[in-house]
């Protein structure tokens, strides 16, 4: 075995990605292996830059809202909501209460479908395709309701600066309720199939450990952080929309009875229980939704001119299914914002891969990678266009480049 075939002693390198069946989106991993064990892990994101922020800076807020729908293929409302909230703060718009409730309903429906989608992906990464089909089959129920409310399955186009574009009328309640009841019945079955299955638990318990301290240190967000015991949820910590009126608390894996280990299993627990929580939230919102308008200004030209006059900057936040998503917008009296920056939730979670992966078996790499529910296309931002012939840029390089660009823009 002289042709570079690994023996027990010599570590060898296994590359995974940018294109690999374990990855749903491109990112590159390099693993230094010793036998089946990962000794050292490294990853390189940044394989899918799309220039979406640049596009936004040439459009007015009403147009950007639809652009934000398309930042992520799964979170159809997360980004539009965060962006709209940023613009609403700058323009000083008061969102009607009814619109706030509708926003919450759709955001929670999105959480349901996103978590079920993730559950399916996780099952597939474990080599359990049957569960994958099952999870995606039941996910269709929520997709159908989303389509029923908004008009489309993926790009909802529901959020507008200052409210929402479509109302939820009482006629629609029975269909929505039917879907929610379906999920309530289903939850026990899903918990049983995922958490009581021996083949799943031996693969997931104590794999991909992320300790409480590490999760804090790396500023993880969303279910990834909560599964490690970090009590963190924008909906609770900084209530917005209708979340302030609701009685919710962040879900920790201990809610299922066991302790908090911060392993893959706990991440499954947290996400499945959050589906149940979302069902309850939607139910409450449907019941307590106040009457009233759904838009701050239904005459769009007026809204556009109000946006055009506005000056200032703001940050809009939203607890996406994957964790906190943040949009920074600055407006300076033009149609288009002067600056628009998107921080997708996965951005905060990617670095937890390294402590999770090191020391684990190669066989568990796919499920550990998937366990933070990475959404790379939403995360990737930096692309080296021309001139600089380097793949990797340090913080100093980036700082120098941004200073140069600011100078260029200001013309000095």
């Amino acid at each position: 075995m002289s042709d570079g075939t690994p023996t027990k002693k010599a570590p060898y390198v296994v590359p995974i990605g940018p294109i690999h069946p374990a990855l749903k989106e491109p990112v590159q991993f390099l693993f230094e292996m010793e036998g089946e064990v990962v000794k050292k892990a490294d990853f390189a994101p940044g394989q899918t830059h799309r220039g979406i922020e640049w596009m936004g800076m040439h459009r007015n807020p009403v147009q950007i809202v639809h652009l934000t729908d398309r930042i992520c293929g799964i979170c159809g409302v997360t980004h539009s909501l965060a962006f709209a909230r940023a613009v609403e703060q700058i323009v000083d718009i008061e969102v009607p209460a009814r619109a706030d409730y509708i926003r919450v309903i759709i955001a929670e429906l999105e959480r349901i479908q996103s978590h079920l989608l993730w559950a399916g992906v996780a099952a597939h990464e474990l080599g359990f395709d049957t569960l994958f089909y099952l999870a995606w089959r039941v996910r269709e129920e929520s997709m159908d309701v989303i389509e029923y409310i908004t008009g489309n399955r993926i790009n909802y186009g529901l959020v507008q600066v200052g409210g929402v574009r479509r109302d939820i009328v009482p006629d629609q309640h029975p269909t929505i309720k039917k879907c929610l009841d379906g999920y309530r019945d289903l939850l026990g079955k899903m918990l049983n199939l995922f958490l009581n299955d021996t083949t799943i638990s031996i693969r997931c318990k104590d794999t991909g450990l992320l300790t409480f301290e590490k999760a804090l240190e790396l500023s993880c967000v969303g279910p990834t952080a909560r599964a490690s015991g970090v009590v963190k949820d924008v909906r609770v910590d900084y209530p917005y929309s209708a979340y302030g009126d609701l009685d919710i608390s962040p879900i920790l894996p201990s809610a299922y009875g066991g302790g908090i280990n911060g392993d893959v299993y706990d991440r499954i627990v947290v996400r499945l229980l959050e589906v149940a929580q979302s069902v309850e939230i939607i139910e409450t919102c449907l019941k307590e939704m106040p009457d009233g308008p759904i838009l701050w200004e239904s005459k769009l030209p007026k809204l556009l001119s109000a946006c055009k006059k506005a000056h200032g900057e703001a940050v809009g936040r939203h607890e996406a299914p994957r964790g906190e998503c943040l949009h920074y917008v600055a407006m300076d009296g033009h149609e288009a914002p002067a600056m628009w920056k998107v921080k997708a939730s996965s951005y905060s979670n990617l670095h937890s891969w390294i402590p999770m992966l090191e020391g684990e078996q190669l066989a568990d790499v796919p499920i550990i990678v998937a366990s933070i529910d990475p959404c790379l296309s939403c995360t990737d931002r930096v692309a080296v266009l021309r001139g600089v012939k380097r793949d990797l840029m340090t913080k100093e390089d980036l700082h120098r480049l941004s200073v140069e660009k600011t100078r260029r823009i200001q013309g000095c």
Partner: protein
Amino acid sequence: MLSMDVILVTILAAGALSIIGIVVGLILLGIDRRISARMQARIGPPLRQPFIDLKKLLSKENIIPENAIPSLFNAAPIVALASSIVVLLYLPIGSMMPILGGYGDLILVMYLLAVPALAMVAGGFASGSPYATVGAQREMVSMIAYELPLASIVIAVAWLLYSSGIADPFALSSIVANPIWSLVGPIGMVGLFVLLLTFAWVSPAELSKIPFDTPEAETELAGGVLVEYSGKNLGLFTIAQGVKTLVMGGLAVAIFFPWNLSPLLGLAGYAALAVDAVFFFAKVILLMILSVTVIRTGLARFRITHVVTLFWVWFGVAGLFGLSLVILDSVLAGWF
């Protein structure tokens, strides 16, 4: 010694059986996919899908990676297919005695069963890809792992025949002629049942199916040992897989369910052969659904470490337990 005629007939029969074996093997793969799809609430591909796939694969060119060892790389699929077909020729199909029955016994079959896996290991190492290398290592490990339970089954069967005073205890023809269940008392029945269950779990491992498909592990190794194979070579592996499925089913039938329909129906001659062959394939299909399709659809993939513990500890113990029950039974029978 052998007349020309006999050799000629043997060759012709072997050729015919190989073709039947390949066709039935592919149909088995189709049935497996279809049933598995139904279990997952999908419609699934048509039964002839493996043939369509094969036709396409065989019409495509082989791509040999730059740092592969071409001779070994190309030889592996041929060896895998050839050895699976040879095993088939050692198996009794219904009431038709094995074509090569006179030239080897159960022990040889056990050795031959290992050859396709070994060919895959060689092909994997020869591919020169890290995924294939890891896959080949895993294939080797799991091969060693399931050998122990398999061996205890073979020994139990041979012991049974031997202690019942049957000549040639390792020959498949004598195993089929004397259904093992009729040779044991109640304790032995339990022992045989344990061994049957063990065999049901060894089959998916032998066929590299979920949960034991670690050598191919699509999600982490992207196909593992087979990752670099394409076109005709992959087609040959597909055929080999089909034949191997048939062989594993046939072996289970020969050891555990050797009964035939023809005595019951009072048939003789070619009619009996045909009826028994059909019955044989029906039994194989049923066994395959139970031990391959259900298991591969209902479980998640194991880590390679789990495979080793499972076979060395759990099924190793189960196999030995079954074996000792069978021995105990025959010893007790000798006393009374």
